């Protein structure tokens, strides 16, 4: 399972998760995009779901360990990364062929990006909610805190408000991440993908 190219891919996915923050900062957009590396690994290792899940999980955790030096709150969301890797392995892997199809089938592509992104967002919101509530009291410093405040004012309990706020914000962010991961997957040279999938075809390095 862990051929040298795959180990390098895990490191690349982790590095991408860490570095994407720099890009978001440079272009000054109000988005996170911190799981693109994880989703991209799943796509690059499709159709092997087990390898895709384990490598994506490993990349997520290595990325959290390293980026935890800069943002000490990120490692608390370790379980969210496991959930994202698992759901991506189950849901995004079947979409890999569509994402790379030439010519692009726009309608199927759009539906699959939206479906994968929304499900990933819902799962991510639910898994993150306990950390958001317990560690941060429901307020993480992002704009979604105002949504939490709004729900609390409406009489929702803190956990319900945090989940509802996550459900309002996360699906959009994850749809964007799946879209970007799909575009990067389309642009990735075939040589590189062949190196990563080599162990399955008997040409392992």
């Amino acid at each position: 399972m862990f051929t040298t190219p795959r180990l390098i891919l895990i490191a690349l996915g982790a590095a991408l998760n860490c570095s994407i923050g720099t890009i978001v900062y440079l272009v000054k957009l109000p988005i996170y995009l911190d799981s693109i590396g994880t989703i991209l690994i799943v796509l690059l290792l499709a159709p092997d779901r087990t390898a895709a899940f384990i490598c994506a999980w490993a990349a997520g955790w290595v990325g959290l360990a390293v980026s935890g030096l800069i943002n000490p709150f990120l490692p608390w969301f370790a379980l969210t990364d496991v959930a994202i890797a698992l759901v991506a392995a189950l849901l995004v892997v079947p979409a890999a062929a569509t994402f790379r199809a030439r010519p692009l089938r726009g309608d199927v592509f759009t539906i699959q990006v939206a479906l994968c992104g929304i499900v990933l967002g819902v799962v991510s919101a639910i898994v993150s909610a306990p950390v958001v509530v317990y560690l941060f009291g429901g307020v993480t410093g992002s704009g979604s805190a105002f949504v939490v405040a709004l729900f609390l004012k409406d009489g929702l309990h803190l956990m319900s408000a945090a989940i509802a706020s996550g459900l309002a914000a996360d699906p959009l962010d994850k749809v964007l991440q799946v879209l970007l991961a799909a575009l990067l997957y389309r642009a990735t040279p075939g040589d590189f993908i062949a190196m990563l999938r080599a162990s399955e075809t008997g040409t392992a390095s």
Partner: protein
Amino acid sequence: MTPNGAFTVGFILIALSVAEPGPRGAAVLVALALAFAVIEVGGASLIALKRAAIVVLPLALFMSLVWVGLVGEAPYQIAADIVGTRTAALVYVAKLSGRLFFVVAVIQLVFLRFADLTPLQLVRALALPAPVKRMLAITLSLIGTLRHAIDRAHIALIASGTLTRAPSWRNAVHSWRLIQAVWLSAVTILIGRMRDKWPVEGTMARLDGALDRGKSRVFAGADRIWLPITLAAGCAILLADLAWKR
């Protein structure tokens, strides 16, 4: 003190702090962290406190705005369906911010304890399985590669008029080009390295040799003092809290 020892002490301190100790427990915890700071980190502890303040203060202000300003009551008051007060909300924010400050400060203290080591030296000193150490070293190296790729691509896209330095609608539409340029740059570099450069130079074998040199130990030296003290303090905190709750 070994990095493994320092990380374990830090982990225990953070775990105890998120277990919501009472006033006595919190006092023991702060005293222990201060002792670690003074004895192991010295003057650099002030840097840890400053960094923790930089991370937590904006968040604390934002929390105050949301809890005290907008919601106007503490979560337990909402849950119990009783009339809330802004004072209770302020106390809640203060407790939460204090805990977050403690967590960030401890993480900073642990890393500043090894500030004289380069990232590669720190990874080498950690007692971890060889593949994990190799992965960490390669990840750190690739982050450097990606940062350079980001700088180059960002400047090129600004020069070509595709992106702007200030926030803009153009950035929202075209920022994916920057991500794609960085990704393709990284993939191309990696294909070259994996196919030609690394096999010829024996990079992986050399990296494993460099990371294994000196046989890092799990716990040694001052770990044997700090770990029992931290564990004993943990027990004391739990007992103090039990007594306080009675």
